[in-house]
């Protein structure tokens, strides 16, 4: 069996049109699913133990089972597919939409059948123009071919705001409000879009649904690192690595294997300093953990997260203070401004990191920074602030020597040799930009 399942058939050339997707057996799973009672489809998903690929790794079948049956609610039931992909280092959903858009559509239709929904929204990030065109034409084609049945699929374009990937912010945005998250509970499954039950899943998750049906749930559950990390995963390999790209691999291979064997290792005879693991929202990995397997449990034991499948390699030219600062600037820029700790904390952390980078901080500031991180984590409305605090805290803790060197040196010990030196950050949207690193 070829490893590619989600991207299966599209290894060489993308399957953009209906005919080419049909040629690899496309939409057969939809027919199969529609022949089953909805609950059975959910049961299959539960059996496969497919888990969310958007970052939180929540069991997909279980989430679908929270949706009340249509008889029990006076409102329509909605599906929103999260195609907002904006986590730094993540580019897999884009690959899916460009290469197997019909598989995503098929997944939407199977999910719609499973929870008896007639309305699917695909919230695609605003910057994805070509991806939007390709996806929209796949939807149109499927519609023309009568595959949608009673289901409506509406591709809704975002407008540039990372936070809209957070599920409740996505709902706010889709309802025509500022894309700010909402307090949970109520959870979207009970009160989501227009206060109606709503299933929210990541593009990769939804696209995996036809795969689960094709492979069979029991078999799917054997792939990867069962029982929890089943199936394959689209890993996003980038940074200082010879062969970056999206690699669909079963869960459970080691990080080292992905970086060195598949990705060709760190080029130019440099050495690996750290890995941005799972996305910029999670603690960075240090080289001593490279043998950790890429599955949720193995990573979790070491304090890492699989997130959205990001593996971004940082080589020894990277100043970790600059790295933390640039990531911090991203979160400051993307904080929605609704809750206090995130709105204020992300900016404060940037100020502190800048002081470290400039050599104007003092040793005690490191503990202050860690304490501020601590005061953000678990206190925010959503986890955007936590994400910032987690990665920043991991940099401070794991690279404290390097932070310290900035004090000794009265500035960046790398001089201008850090690979991130001089990196720009779009700080305030619609307003000034600043060179901060």
């Amino acid at each position, binding site marked *: 069996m070829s490893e590619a399942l989600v991207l299966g058939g599209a290894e060489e050339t993308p399957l953009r049109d209906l005919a080419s997707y049909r040629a690899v057996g496309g939409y057969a799973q939809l027919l199969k699913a529609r022949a089953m009672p909805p609950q059975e489809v959910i049961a299959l998903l539960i059996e496969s133990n497919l888990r969310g690929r958007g970052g939180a790794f929540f069991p997909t079948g279980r989430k679908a089972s929270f949706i009340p049956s249509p008889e029990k609610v006076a409102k329509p039931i909605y599906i929103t597919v999260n195609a907002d992909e904006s*986590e730094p280092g993540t580019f897999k959903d*884009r690959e899916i939409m460009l290469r197997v858009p019909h598989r995503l559509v098929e997944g939407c239709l199977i999910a719609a059948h499973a929870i008896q929904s007639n309305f699917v929204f695909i919230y695609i990030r605003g910057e994805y123009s070509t991806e939007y065109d390709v996806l929209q034409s796949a939807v149109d084609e499927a519609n023309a071919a009568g595959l949608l049945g009673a289901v409506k699929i509406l591709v809704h374009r975002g*407008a540039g705001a990372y936070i809209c990937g957070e599920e409740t912010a996505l709902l706010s945005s889709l309802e025509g409000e500022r894309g700010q998250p909402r307090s949970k509970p109520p959870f979207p499954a009970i009160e989501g879009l227009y206060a109606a039950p709503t299933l929210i899943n990541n593009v990769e998750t939804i696209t995996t649904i036809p795969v689960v049906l094709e492979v069979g749930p029991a078999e799917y559950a054997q792939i990867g690192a069962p029982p929890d990390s089943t199936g394959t995963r689209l890993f996003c390999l980038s940074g200082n690595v010879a062969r*970056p790209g999206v690699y669909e691999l079963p869960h459970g291979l080691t990080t080292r294997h992905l970086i060195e064997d598949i990705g060709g290792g760190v080029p130019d005879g440099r050495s690996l300093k750290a890995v941005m693991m799972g996305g910029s929202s999670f603690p960075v990995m240090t080289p001593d953990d490279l043998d950790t397997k890429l599955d949720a449990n193995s990573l979790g034991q070491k304090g890492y997260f699989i997130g959205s499948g990001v593996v971004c390699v940082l080589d020894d030219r990277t100043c970790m203070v600059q790295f933390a600062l640039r990531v911090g600037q991203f979160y400051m820029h993307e904080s929605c401004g609704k809750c206090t700790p995130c709105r204020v904390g992300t900016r404060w952390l940037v100020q502190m990191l800048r002081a470290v980078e400039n050599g104007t901080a003092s040793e005690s500031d490191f503990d202050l920074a860690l304490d501020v991180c601590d005061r953000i984590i678990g206190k925010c409305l959503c986890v955007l602030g936590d994400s910032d605090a987690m990665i920043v805290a991991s940099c401070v803790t794991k690279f404290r020597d390097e932070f310290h060197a900035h004090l000794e040196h009265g500035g960046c010990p790398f001089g201008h040799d850090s690979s991130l030196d*001089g*990196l*720009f950050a779009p700080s305030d949207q619609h307003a000034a930009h600043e060179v901060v690193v």
Partner: protein
Amino acid sequence: MSLADEIQKVARRYPESKSAILPALRLAQEEYGWLSREAIEEVGEALDLTPAYCMSVASFYDLFNFEPIGRHTIEVCTNVCCGLVNAQAVLESFERELDIAPGETTADGEITLRAVECLGGCSTPTIVAIDQRYRQSVTPEDVPAILEELRNV
């Protein structure tokens, strides 16, 4: 079709018309190049929302312009993944060639240069969105040819 008609047509696809605010703002921006006071008022009128509300929503998102911008936009990803492999050199090359800083528009009103957050193309750095279409693996050396191409469009 007038902008208002177009907006209302899009709005009808949604269960509630307010949901069409982003597509509506996008349409208005396509029509005028940026969201002027009048453009926002038009969107508000078409969707039965106050201009203040429309402005509030629009200003939340990065893709809307509240000032006129160039005929073309160049957006260089400067998040860490591209930064690790020298996005700054690409940005600097654009700055040099255009003689403007990020966030600015050339004096002739042709090109607006921006630095933006991760565009989701980290495996082919540096990603540059030219008029909202991605160019992959852009190097500083590619910059003059890209500008040449744009100026001839």
